[in-house]
């Protein structure tokens, strides 16, 4: 049973963490989910360079000198939810676009030509526009060209995830946005997304359906980042134990200005984001850590090798955006505008191997 930590308990543990507590963990070189709040504390913030070193060491050992490169492909920005903070929110008047299968393939082709072999399909949550059948169709087409096709779309049932898996989707990303139940209710006013528990159980359903990889995370800036971090840690530990065959990743979407103009209630600084990334790496040596183009160039360059294992590059967050930039409403503003060649050049300059193709889905029996 997933038992998320209690808000007050986490904050209290954070408050009471001392330098000695942090040093004990650094010395041990490992951290449990129960101990994670120590690494998320103000006390630990004083040890950021040491946390970085440990995170770097662990990442190097587990992942080597590699950084996986992927690209998001926004299929549709229609959304039936009303999330207060999102550019795609139903009440926002933005140019809506839903790509046809041909248009998706055209976009995918651009990405393919640029060298990408791992692709993440993204949609707003509008089942009638893009549901399982549409995604399965796209997957069947794309899987011949791309090593892996993942999705970051609306939560599906186990049955639908199984169908998507059959069709060629191998990974699912779904973010709880905020693990704070009360806050969640305030932010997700209508639509299927207003069901906190259904969303929380989504990784379980994806794992049960046989997905090879499942990604979790919280939208940083909504709730208290230390609490969200503690919940991510607990959620991850629970999933890993229960679904031992599945690979896991954590992403760090951070609130940036969007069409909706939402100002984050509890913004997380870059330094705090960094602390969170290192803490999770120390807690889980094997989890993939994704940093997207939301973050600035200098930041992404500096973090290479310190913990993150996957970068998107040259991203467009609008449907059709690779072929026609500014075609429609973006989900969020990009921070790192560099084309993929530029990002890859930096990765190589740092002595890392940019991995376009991590594994071959043809080895997988569908």
């Amino acid at each position, binding site marked *: 049973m997933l038992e998320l930590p209690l808000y007050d308990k986490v904050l209290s543990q954070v408050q009471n963490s001392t330098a000695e507590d942090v*040093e*004990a963990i*650094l*010395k*041990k*070189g*490992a*951290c*449990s989910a129960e*101990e994670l709040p120590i690494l998320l504390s103000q006390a630990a913030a004083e*040890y*950021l*360079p*040491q946390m*970085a*070193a*440990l*995170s*770097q*060491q*662990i990442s190097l*050992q*587990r992942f080597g000198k590699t950084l996986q490169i992927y690209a998001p492909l926004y299929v549709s920005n229609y959304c039936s939810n009303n999330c207060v903070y999102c550019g795609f929110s139903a009440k926002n008047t933005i140019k809506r676009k839903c790509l046809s299968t041909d248009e998706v393939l055209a976009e995918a082709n651009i990405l393919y030509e640029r060298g990408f072999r791992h692709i993440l399909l993204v949609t707003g949550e509008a089942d009638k526009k893009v549901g399982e059948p549409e995604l399965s169709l796209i997957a069947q087409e794309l899987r011949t060209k791309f090593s892996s096709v993942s999705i970051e779309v609306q939560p599906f049932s186990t049955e639908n995830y199984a169908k998507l898996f059959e069709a060629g989707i191998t990974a699912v990303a779904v973010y709880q946005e905020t693990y704070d139940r009360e806050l969640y209710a305030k932010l997700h006013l209508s639509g299927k997304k207003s069901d906190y528990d259904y969303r929380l159980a989504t990784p379980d359903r994806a794992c049960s359906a046989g997905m090879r990889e499942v990604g979790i995370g919280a939208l940083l800036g909504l709730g208290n980042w230390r609490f969200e971090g503690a919940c991510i840690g607990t959620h991850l530990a629970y999933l890993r*134990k*229960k679904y*031992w065959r599945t690979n896991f990743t954590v992403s760090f979407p951070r609130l940036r200005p969007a069409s909706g103009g939402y100002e984050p209630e509890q913004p997380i*600084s*870059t*330094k705090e984001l*960094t602390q969170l990334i290192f803490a999770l790496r120390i807690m889980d*040596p*094997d989890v993939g850590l994704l940093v997207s183009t939301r973050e600035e160039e*200098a*930041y992404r*360059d*500096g*973090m290479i090798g*310190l913990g993150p294992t996957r970068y998107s590059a040259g991203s467009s967050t609008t449907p059709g955006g690779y072929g026609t930039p500014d075609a429609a409403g973006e989900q969020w503003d990009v921070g790192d505008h560099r084309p993929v060649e530029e990002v890859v050049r930096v990765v190589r300059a740092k002595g890392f191997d940019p991995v376009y193709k991590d594994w071959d889905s043809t080895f997988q029996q569908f």
Partner: protein
Amino acid sequence: MLTIAGEEFSSRLFIGTGKFASPQVMREVLVASKSEMVTVALRRVNLENPEDDIMSQIDTGETRFLPNTSGARDAVEAVRLAELARAGSGTNWLKLEVTPDPRTLLPCPIETLKATEELVKKGFIVLPYMNADPILALKLQDAGAAAVMPLGAPIGTNLGVTTRLQVEIIIEQARVPVVVDAGIGAPSQAALAMEIGADAVLVNTAIAVSPNPVAMAEAFCQAVTAGRMAYEAGLGRQSSMASASSPTTGNITADLDFLGVPC
């Protein structure tokens, strides 16, 4: 408190009843060890010279009786022995042992998994003896095993927890209790098993063949208690998968200038 299949045990030392010089010694050992779980085997009665019934030596009020399937060479034989054991003991608890090689007595992973699946379906509470293979441990748990019993070293070798790394992984990933069984030859080895996080240990040979089995049983009892206490006193050992050598705090740092803020 150790809980297996909903039942509580105050002692984390399980005793095997084989190789004892006499049933009386075995009974005294059980008392000295404070064990609440003992294994027994099933054999044909020697009709020329039927021995004393071991059951009379075990106080089943205090001690749980755990029949094993020793002698089984495959799942079919194991299931048959299990049914006999259940009929004879009235308990559905079972230590599953499938050991096709009589020289090494190492457990067959394939037949053990098969037998576990079948026996769980038949309503047994299965504690499978296994080689310390973490994936096998996961699969046995998926099949419904109530605990897993990875070996420290082959039966009777007294070599200790030679499988330490794998056992640590098993412990980290386990959703059921982990009982290190076989190969534990000295109290220090039992303590080690407990210190790395095992939920219990099973000891037989080391006690039975000692010149003073009763004293040895008491030594093991203390070792298991000490090992467990040490484990609980620590923050709980973490995964052996990250073998990052600990940085001396304050000395090893990474460059965070790119953050643009003081760190």
